């Protein structure tokens, strides 16, 4: 027993010392490396800016480490740029063989390498990676699929819309990732999204309705109005929200009818939308919802009524039994002057 304990203690002591020494060496190496990288970044930022401006830059003397640093700097710039500058960044990465390296990494056995490669390909802006990124939407690892979706969005690739939607419908990528990618693709995604508002999966329908609200035009109102009668409460709420976003006034009558929806969060979304697309005629109904409904719809209705007819809200709030939501809305109207 004693010898086991003694050997155990000795082993622990050795482990502790080895860990400490390893950490000290690691820190020493890292600090030097970071210092060197910092200096290289400062030096190469000018080169990166010249590349972005389309100037011809001689990169023949660039060693491997500097090429990595330049790629990092350009990748960082690439995230915030669009258009011709992105094309120049992409062409730099293609010439350097970096795109090829990342495409190879997409086939790595390690999921995190594949995910990093999928992500970096989006920052590089090269269209050479699109087919592989589309294929990566079927990767067994969620992080890889999400990174690929994000990159396809960044590249604004219209042919990626359907695979993205499909991946969303099959719950292979998170809703937020798919949504953001489709938003990044922008208008080219709209035709597919418009078709998708009638998709069989409520999840896909819900997101499509929401995105049409963010990307579409008031003319999309007619299709969205139909979704106010969808079997899914989330889709109905999103449709109301989208109608408000688009300012689709032709949806006002249907929205008015939807104020009686059985689900509170749908009624709240409907009330908010009416605050944008409704007119003075709907105010009495909104005031009634504000007085009588449950918390969220009542608060939304009071806010909507205040937006459409502040005087009516002030008046209604002064009547006994007005309720807390009308009081709040009236006070906010007062505060806004």
């Amino acid at each position: 027993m004693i010898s086991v304990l003694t050997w155990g203690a000795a082993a622990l002591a050795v482990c502790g010392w080895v860990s400490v020494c390893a950490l000290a060496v690691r820190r020493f190496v890292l600090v030097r490396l970071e210092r060197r990288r910092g200096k290289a970044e400062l030096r190469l930022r000018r080169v990166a800016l010249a590349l972005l401006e389309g100037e011809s830059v001689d990169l023949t003397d660039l060693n491997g480490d500097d090429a990595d640093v330049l790629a990092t700097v350009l990748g960082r710039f690439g995230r915030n740029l669009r258009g011709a500058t992105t094309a120049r960044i992409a062409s730099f990465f293609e010439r350097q063989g970096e795109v090829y390296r990342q495409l190879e990494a997409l086939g790595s056995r390690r999921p995190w390498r594949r995910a990093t490669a999928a992500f970096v390909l989006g920052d590089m802006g090269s269209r050479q990676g699109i087919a592989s990124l589309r294929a990566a939407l079927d990767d067994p690892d969620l992080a890889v699929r999400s990174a690929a979706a994000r990159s396809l969005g960044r590249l604004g690739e219209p042919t990626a819309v359907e695979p993205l939607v499909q991946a969303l419908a099959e719950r292979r990528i998170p809703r937020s990732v798919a949504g953001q990618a489709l938003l990044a693709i922008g208008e080219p995604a709209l035709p597919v999204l418009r078709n998708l508002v009638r998709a069989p999966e409520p999840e896909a329908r819900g997101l499509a309705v929401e995105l049409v609200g963010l990307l579409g035009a008031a003319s999309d109102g007619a299709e969205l109005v139909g979704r106010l009668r969808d079997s899914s409460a989330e889709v109905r709420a999103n449709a109301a929200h989208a109608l408000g976003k688009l300012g689709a006034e032709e949806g006002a009558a249907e929205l008015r009818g939807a104020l009686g929806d059985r689900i509170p969060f749908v009624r709240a979304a409907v009330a908010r939308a009416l605050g944008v697309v409704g007119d003075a005629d709907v105010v009495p109904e909104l005031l009634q919802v504000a007085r009588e409904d449950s918390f969220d719809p009542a608060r939304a209705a009071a806010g909507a009524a205040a937006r459409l007819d502040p005087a009516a809200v002030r008046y209604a709030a002064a009547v006994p039994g007005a309720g807390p939501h009308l009081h709040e809305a009236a006070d906010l109207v007062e505060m806004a002057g």
Partner: protein
Amino acid sequence: MIHGLFHVMSIIALVYFVVLNGTYLVFTGVAWRGITQHRRERRYAALEEAFASPLTPPISILLPAYNEEAGIVQSVHSLLALRYPSLEVVVVSDGSTDSTVERLREAFDLVPVRKALRAGIETAPVLATYASRLKPSLTVIEKENGGKADALNCGVNAARHAYVCAIDADALLEEDALLRVAKPIVDDPERVVATGGIVRIVNGCSVDHGRVVSVGLPTSSIATMQVVEYLRAFLVGRVGWSRLGLLLIISGAFGVFRRSLVEAVGGWSTTTVGEDVELVLRLHRHLKERGEEYRIEFVADPVCWTECPETLRVLSRQRRRWQRGLAEALWRHRRLVGNPRYGLLGMFALPYFLLFELLGPVIQLLGLPIVIVAFAVDSVSLGFLVAFLLMSLFLAVLLSVSALALEEVSFRRHASGREAARLLAYAVLENFGYRQINDVWRLQALVDLARGKTKWGEMPRRGLGLPNEAPSRS
């Protein structure tokens, strides 16, 4: 007879130490894997996209404040400036007797507004509610004193958004901390119901306008030992439990929760001093009893900076309060302990907390004297005594060093080599007295609890909101 008894007790003490520290070592391994994975994931976390996305869920930040006149304005400014697409800040002055509300009124041009509040959770009476002419996303509520939990519940009743973030009034969030802590929710809103971030010690750091501008170590030994302790607790403990899907604690200083769920379980408990651990336990229980698939996650990189006690007196109060909170939470949910219906939560996490966290101080404080007495009465040999002591010491040191190693390979917040060396020294030194005195306080808490003592005193703070201040160096 006595010889045999002491011999057996010595062996029990040894087994306890080995099991406890062995479990810690396993956790260190799990945490190491978790942190490494998290570090890699940061490369493709797409935070920029989450920040720019209209699909990122809005969050209501709840800031309970009791006599926080010194730093409240700075805290609110820094919260309103957080990098998050859509947020509101709800300040709840919990019966403050100083000029907390007055300061806010002046700084943000507050106007009394009869704000509608949900009736979902019962709280102490609300005296007044205010909106700001300057910051539409700021709400201030003045209510009668009811404690921090009551103030948080009042904040939940006032919150507009589907997620609430509870933070301490004296805590400082890093600029993108909210975005980072909310990322698991953004990615999987159906399953992730709550997330918590890491709490780090601000003593010794330079703070300017509510932001930590340079990270440093406190000059005080007690505070520096707490830096090591926090690293161990968060980077090993929380990461490990979170990886196992058994996270029981989301720090009261910084956590995000699905509002509807907090309402469904009745909000933070006002009758315990450990309302943070109690709430998380209640959420687990509620969701498990309904057979729902859910996740409660700890995220290691969103940082909330908070001030720690620098005197033994105040530290002892804090530790006794924490221990009492844990005891109350475990007692309240004792039905779950060892209950297979609650899966690993009932069969592993809660028994672990009961045996090693709650009763740990008793056994650890008794273990060493037992072995010494056993040696004195010739029940065990000198060799056993020395080997036992060395084994316990080296295991404890190795565990602390592992936590520092995790910090070193992942976040490396203490950039200077000198500070890293100091932390290492304290990782060794804390085993000579500091941990033992902590055990004494925790034991005292159990005694106080048994005697029905409920007063814990105040925790005096230096205040963090003022520009260019380094609290522990002043």
